[in-house]
């Protein structure tokens, strides 16, 4: 990667614990830091707490204990802080979650107008620029149900970008897609990474992880088992458990 990852930490997660009702422990003494412009890929077996970790970062899940700070703003009980973080952290979901009653363009405009208080015209221009960026400007006035999965996910990425977030979270963004569509979505994500977007990505796409990320995290049972620079993580993992997992997925 030809970009500079500055030393400044934008996401700081300290000793977070999260247990779901029913006693399933999703995060246990979980700590991690992400620097500005860094791409962090989180891998691990299912049920290891990867998604929960992402969902805690923008307040979709409440943590039981521990602290999360995004760009200097603590994710605490203060409503204003939580709202600020929601604005600054974009999220892309496995199941796209586009708004089916709105056209593609309206999906992109909505938060710009309601949250960023942009004029309709400004929003429209930015939305079209984003649709160009994800390669489907011709779908602007179509309802999401008429798009392929890959197109829907690209719209979802554009919708998140419309808020001009400082951080983007990807929760298994390509898991619901067939290989061809996976490629078109990964291409958009790679482009974002090149442009210096701070990204936390949960994925099973090891090729993508290896190519795009600066750092890898391997999780199991709500804990960080291993973390390290991507190349070293793949070529020479320290932990036996990581080695075993990688041998199964590569």
């Amino acid at each position, binding site marked *: 990667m030809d970009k500079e990852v500055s030393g400044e930490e934008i996401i700081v997660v300290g000793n977070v614990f999260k247990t779901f009702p029913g006693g399933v422990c999703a995060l246990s003494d979980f700590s991690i830091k992400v620097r500005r412009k860094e791409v962090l890929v989180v891998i691990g077996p299912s049920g290891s707490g990867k998604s929960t970790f992402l969902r805690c970062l*923008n*307040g*979709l899940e409440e943590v039981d204990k521990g602290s999360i700070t995004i760009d200097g703003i603590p994710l605490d009980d203060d409503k204003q802080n939580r*709202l600020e973080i*929601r*604005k600054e*952290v*974009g*999220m892309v*979901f496995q*199941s796209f*979650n*586009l*708004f*089916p*009653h709105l056209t593609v363009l309206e999906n992109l405009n*909505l*938060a710009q107008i*309601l*949250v960023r208080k942009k004029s309709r015209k400004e929003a429209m221009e930015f939305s079209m620029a984003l649709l160009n960026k994800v390669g489907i400007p011709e779908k602007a006035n179509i*309802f999401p*149900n008429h798009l392929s999965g890959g197109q829907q996910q690209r719209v*979802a990425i554009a*919708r*998140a970008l419309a*808020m001009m977030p400082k951080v983007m*979270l990807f929760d298994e963004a390509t898991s619901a897609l067939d290989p061809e569509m996976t490629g078109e979505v990964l291409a958009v994500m790679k482009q974002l990474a090149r442009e210096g977007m701070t990204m936390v990505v949960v994925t099973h796409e090891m090729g993508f992880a290896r190519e795009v990320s600066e750092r890898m995290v391997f999780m199991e049972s709500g804990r960080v088992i291993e973390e390290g620079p991507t190349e070293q993580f793949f070529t020479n993992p320290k932990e036996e458990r990581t080695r075993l997992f990688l041998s199964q997925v590569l």
Partner: protein
Amino acid sequence: MKASSIKVGRYSKRSPIIDVAAFLLVMAGLTWITGTGTSKLGYNWQWYRVPQYLFTYEGGRWLAGPLIDGLMVTFEITGASLILAFSFGMISALCRLSDSYLARMIARGYLELIRNTPLLVQLFFIYFVMAPIFDLSRFASAVLALSLFEGAYASEIFRAGIVSIHKGQWEAAHSLGLSTFDTYRRIILPQAIRRILPPLTSQAISLVKDSALVSTIAVYDLTMRGREIISETFLAFEIWFTIAAIYLVVTVSLSIVVSRMERRFGESG
């Protein structure tokens, strides 16, 4: 997509003649039952006396008879109650789904109280107990009782509609920084309304029919007018059948309008 196209295919293959024949058979059966029933009753039918209670023709102008006057009052009561009932329903549904314990309990109390007591008792309670305190007119008492009653049922319909929206929609709105209010207004309710339109129609139809109860507190609606005419003329069967037919026309028209609306909503989405 696939399932619905198979279904359409299967239905379109059946000849409409069979449906029409079946309908005619049923209607013939019903007519026969009614005919034999009333002839055994030895009732003297005087249908020719009925039209004057619908319309009269005087001095070159058509004038509405008492039944049509009553129907207008029924429309007024139903219309006002419908708007209020949906407001009560929406508010209490949102209360039940809110994070506030107090709001949830109040909404729950309202629902249980209304749904577990008869409408007639509620109507009498409001008219005889509350109306003197708050100086409510008969009309206002009627509207309040009906809308509180139907609102409780509408509330459960709204709640079911809101809950049926996939939680991913909430999460997407949340991650875009939308407020709860905006999420409801722009994301959840527009989708929920489409789904709850059919049950809400049934509720509106119930309201039209339930409005007949207001005749018990002497509001001059369709039913009250009918009772009045019957007590003067003893045309019990003719007038009751006419009233039933009028209610039927109103409710069926309502269903048709709503199914048109549904089809239009269905196109986008």
